[in-house]
């Protein structure tokens, strides 16, 4: 495409189907202790 370059395709819908196992890290335990950036967390299934 000339006008649009896709950095990342749609991954969220597929993740809804197989997600929710709850084994991943609690976001607040990582470094922040106040804010809630969650998109930098790892999916346990991809580790």
């Amino acid at each position, binding site marked *: 495409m*000339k006008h*649009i370059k896709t950095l990342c395709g*749609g*991954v*969220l819908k597929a993740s809804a189907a197989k997600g929710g196992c*709850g084994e991943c890290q609690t976001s607040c335990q990582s470094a922040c202790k106040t804010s809630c950036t*969650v*998109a*930098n967390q790892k999916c346990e299934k991809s580790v």
Partner: protein
Amino acid sequence: MVHTFKIKDTAIAVDVASGAVHVVSDIALDIIRQFDEKPGEDCPDWLFERLDSYPMDEIKEAYDEVYQLCKANLLYTDDAYAQIAAETRKQPLVKALCLHVSHDCNLRCGYCFAGTGNFCGERCIMSEETGKKAIDFVIKRSGKRRNIEIDFFGGEPLMNFEVVKKLTAYAREQEKIHNKNFRLTLTTNGVLLDEDKLDFINEHMSNLVLSIDGRKSVNDHMRKTVSGEGSYDVIMPRLKRAAQSRNQDNYYVRGTFTRHNLDFCADVLHLANEGFKQISVEPVVGGADCGYAIREEDLPLVYDQYEQLAEEILQRNQDGRRFNFFHFMIDLTQGPCVIKRMSGCGAGCEYVAVTPEGDIYPCHQFVGNDGFLLGNVYADDYSAEKTQMFADANVYTKPKCAECWAKFYCSGGCHANAYQFGGDIKAPYEIGCAMERKRVECALYIKAKNAE
């Protein structure tokens, strides 16, 4: 919902529901901004009139690309997750503990949410027995979840390090019996971080959070010793040694910025220049009347600082001085599932704090607030009913989050911040939200520039 923004010469479109991220030309940006909903196959005539500064054939060409992405479910995708959110956490399990092994501290930080370590109660430390009860509690409440996190927290946890060691041994013993995997972490100001403690931490702790605010003048303005002196000269060599001993990985130096250092980019870079590779510096949490909290009128400066930081990170990625800034780290392809992204930090349901007395609170920020006391590890009186308000809090039950493009990046914000400012865990703290949105934009901008 599609969010568009531009930083310098880079225009980006985020398709919120699918998670797709696109770098777009100026024409495509202007076209996307004309539509609230998915456009049809044929380019409407009114678009040529509105965008008459562009040639018609260019508009048609860009419009067709926009339409192709819509057809591929990568733009203007329907948000169909609300029902999933309603089904999540009907029976919440506890899987993470913030273990307050010390309600005492050897620093007296000006912005401490814990009332300089004691959480406005008596200065005390946790007994081994209470800590073991807390570990028993999380094992019992975690159901089939295997991974359990315990953060040794305070006050200052190194003031009760013998108990940290004993509880570490107990966790290792119990995980074998109950088929659990304990991930232990520790958050410290570094004052007591000697070689022996560091060796133990490096052997047993999967992450280590080291508190320092940045430049000496900034750090020492807020982070003072009991006698009122700055802490920088005491902690800096210890923190450097700790980072080095962990091979510059699996740790964070974690700073706080306030409206007294709105030029916080300099503090992040100071930490990077001192050799730290894993850095998290974030805005203070404080009431509107405290004097140091970020105000609405400060936001333009804060945004500018985040953009400056993004540019500096891009430059350092190229010249070999790379470091990670926690809030700019976004995994676009292998990040958490949408269920995690809609349900937030888990405070009050998946994540609780336990005090030296064994009292259980929704998280460390709620400790001492009697209205949020959930039970005690000795009493076996913990009730999931009391925690339902937290279990129900997700980006769809928070009206402002439901309308926000960044909801799947921040997951609804900090409950404690929301409660502190608005008296309601479902009413997000607006200034915090504004800063979070800017951080996400800068993170996506970095991704876009790195992909060029």
